[in-house]
């Protein structure tokens, strides 16, 4: 434990942040943030995706610097210039992407990079130390098991344990529960309480409100880089109001939505479950989407959206349930999904395009192995270039140069290229995952128009997004995902910040059926 001369850890305020701002390019991630962590408290920091929570955590931990403002730690001015310096001052930052070395054991991780560690590694004493701390907190963190072989929840416990063993005086947990199940979350809460009673204050970042009522003492709400609630008493707070504050005003009617006539059901999802080791998966989803209808799937990122997008496009084996497109079951077969006319705008352009391939190869990739544009199994480059040229013209990809590399295009044009590939024919079902994410207004409008056009042509459209504006601009109806389940479903006209906030933060009873 390092303690600076003159500092009294018992009396100084553990952390005080005053007027901290930070900008990334055009994004003001934090604007004049004031924040105080008192001793002996668990302070929850909540906010939507992109609110600036992680940025604040990183500034406190020392891994990035603020543009302006000041901090003090246990009564002493605190200006960390690196994460190592922050750690030496007693700030431990446990990130969502855990940073244990996966090919090593917990005991080895304990020694690796430890402040003031001796040059030689004493395996026996490291093991004993892990066991001692593990017992102390009534955990069962194995000292000699490879991190890779441990479940996520145990890895996280190991990381917290190592932080404490390194002498952390203040702990920051960034979305620690987002990949945990209910029981594991309970264990985490117990561990946090234990740490609090040992005198370690905790800054706990989350957007899952229900667990905070049990866990935290006070809470601070960030929205778009600003503090909207500072240090409210959690027990006295109305969590529904907090949820609403997190989201802010949801504005409807910003876009003039075209009139679209709704047809019969084209997409039917019954009892859909996906289990995933990587993320939360989906559990028992039921919904239908009619031709001409746009369904918005909202939720904070990491609540099962990826699994849902993959399930709807036949890219994962389902643990249970069915995905029917015009009555045909396409579950678990991407090939069948494509044959049935399912189009997929990937969330991430780096997974949705072959960056090093030409525009022409990307634009026509959906025809691969279909026998189109080939003779004797050989691809006909001229035909492909000509066809791609037409597509690129139609979808206004700039520059309209079939031979250019996809990676040479701007983000908006890459998105248009992906649309050209997927929407060449009017889709029966369009799964658009964050279709306007990161695009400039003009490109975003083009993508919205593509979604409307697919619906107008009779397709069922599912827009999956963590961006509420994107959904409110597009959708006729909304379902809310929380921990892989649908917590609410309503027509867009009934969307209010209160209702949405509650459902997104998990304050609504899980609904069995959300078909409209």
């Amino acid at each position, binding site marked *: 434990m390092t303690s600076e001369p003159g500092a009294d850890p018992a009396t100084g305020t553990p952390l005080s942040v005053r007027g901290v701002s930070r900008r*990334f390019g055009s*994004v003001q991630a934090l604007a004049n943030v004031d924040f105080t962590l008192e001793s002996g408290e668990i302070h929850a920091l909540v906010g939507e995706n992109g609110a600036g929570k*992680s940025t604040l955590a*990183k500034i406190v931990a020392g*891994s*990035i610097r603020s543009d302006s403002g000041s901090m003090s730690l246990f009564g002493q001015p605190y200006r960390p210039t*690196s*994460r*190592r310096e922050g*750690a030496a001052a007693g700030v431990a930052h*446990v990130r*969502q*992407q*855990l*940073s*244990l*070395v*996966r*090919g090593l054991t917990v005991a080895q*991780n304990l020694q690796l*990079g430890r402040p003031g560690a001796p040059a030689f590694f004493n395996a026996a004493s490291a093991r004993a130390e892990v066991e001692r701390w593990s017992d102390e907190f009534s955990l069962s963190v194995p000292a000699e098991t*490879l991190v890779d*072989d441990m479940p996520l929840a145990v890895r996280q416990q190991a*990381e917290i344990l*190592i932080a404490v063993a*390194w002498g952390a005086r203040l702990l920051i947990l*960034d979305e620690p529960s987002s990949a945990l199940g209910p029981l594991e979350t309970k264990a985490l809460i117990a561990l946090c309480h234990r740490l609090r009673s040992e005198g370690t204050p905790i800054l706990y970042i989350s957007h899952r409100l229900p667990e905070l009522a049990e866990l935290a003492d006070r809470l601070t709400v960030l929205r778009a880089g600003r503090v909207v609630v500072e240090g409210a008493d959690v027990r006295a707070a109305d969590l529904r109001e907090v949820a609403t504050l997190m989201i802010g005003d949801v504005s409807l009617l910003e876009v003039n939505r075209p009139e679209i006539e709704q047809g019969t059901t084209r997409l039917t999802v019954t009892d859909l479950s996906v289990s995933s080791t990587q993320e939360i998966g989906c559990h028992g989803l039921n919904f239908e989407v009619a031709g001409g209808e746009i369904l918005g799937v909202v939720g904070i990122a*990491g609540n099962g959206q990826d699994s849902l997008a993959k399930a709807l*496009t036949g*890219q994962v084996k389902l643990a249970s349930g069915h995905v029917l497109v015009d009555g045909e079951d396409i579950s678990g*077969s*991407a*090939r069948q999904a*494509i044959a049935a006319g399912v189009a*997929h705008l*990937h969330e*991430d*352009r*780096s*997974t*949705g*395009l*072959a*960056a*090093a*391939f030409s525009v022409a*190869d990307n634009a026509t*990739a*959906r025809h*691969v*192995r279909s026998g189109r544009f*080939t003779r004797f*199994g*050989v*691809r006909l*480059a001229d035909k492909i270039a000509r066809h791609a040229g037409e597509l690129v013209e139609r979808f206004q990809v700039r520059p309209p140069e079939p031979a250019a*590399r*996809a*990676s040479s295009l701007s983000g908006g044009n890459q998105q248009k290229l992906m649309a050209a590939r997927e929407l060449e024919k009017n889709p029966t079902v369009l799964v658009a995952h964050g279709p306007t*994410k990161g695009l400039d207004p003009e490109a975003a409008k083009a993508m919205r128009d593509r979604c409307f056009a697919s619906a107008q042509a009779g397709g069922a459209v599912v827009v999956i997004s963590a961006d509420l504006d994107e959904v409110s601009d597009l959708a006729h109806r909304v379902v809310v995902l929380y921990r892989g389940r649908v917590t609410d479903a309503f027509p867009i006209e009934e969307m209010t910040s209160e209702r949405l906030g509650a459902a997104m933060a998990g304050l609504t009873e899980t609904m069995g059926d959300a078909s409209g």
Partner: protein
Amino acid sequence: MPVADTFIGGDVGDAPPEPLEDEGRRLTTSLSTSCLAVLIAIVLGGLIMLMSGENPLTAYTAMVDGAFGSKFALGETLSRAAPLAIVGYGTAVALRAGLITIGAQGQVVAGAIGALVTAQFFESAPSAVAIPAAALGGALFGMAWVLIPALLRAHFSVNEILSTLLFTEFAALLIEYLLNNPLKPPTAITPQSDPYPDNGILGLVIDGTRFHVGVFVAVAIGLLFVWWVRSDRGFSYDLYGENPNLAQSLGISGNRVIVNSLLISGATAGLVGWIQAAGLLQRVYVEIASDIGFFGLVVAFLGGATPGGVLVAALLFGALQSGGLAMQSSEGIPASLSDIIQALLLLGFSIRYAPQIIRLTRGVMANFTLIGKRRK
């Protein structure tokens, strides 16, 4: 937390979208970097010659002369380039699909054994049957030698670099055993097989040279490879190599790509084993594969896994090898200088790949620590 400072760039999950990576997954090289590597190797090689008291000009002239200067020299160069090119093309198929197989050496050995055993089985058949049968036997043994690594990679994500390397080791042990025991003629003192059956021998095509039928096989495989890179199936494999997630979302089966492309690489290496046994050595020795498997890989990398690139790279290495030997006999300059140039080539080109190689090494190391453990 631990090793905090080795992680640069912060949280993966909430970082803003990255620009599309262009070179990240590319395992193949561009023409200009390859040329640069060659140039650097020649210059550095020249410096080393100077330092060891040789005249680089004399040496290089002797090498060029020994590689291309006569009918014999040309035959020698082509006969050395042919197996490198064949292994190179097969490896290139896997490389383009994003798989780094370094097991060609073992597959050549397996192919030689396969060809010999098949040829012995067809000992009294007409050559028109025995020769193709032995070729097939070699190819099948080469494929068999990569089958387990391929299945492990497809179904359990076991790193193919490590597993194919291990199988090379197995092949070395196996051939040592076979040539000391079941395949060894009673009269032999050193480990070796019976002479390759006469009816299966690939004759030398041009007398007075070592130009053999393997050169035609290399041309045929080269043409097949040209077809492959232009074919729709080849495109789907390339797509998988470039972006596996996208390929799978377009209905391409990743497991099939992995297994098939590795089998193709195994088959070509197996064919080389057949050529070595039936054409050049006409017997199977422990050293049957020479270093062909390893240099074949280099040829695939250096040639950027493209048809022309692999061809040029194979000719370059064939010329360096034949020229090096000629230089030794004509000028008395040690042929090991040619080995040095080949090694420099390898180095020059691996520096270009330093980031990828480091990443791969990490992958391999992760496998090492996990040996004997389940890996998801």
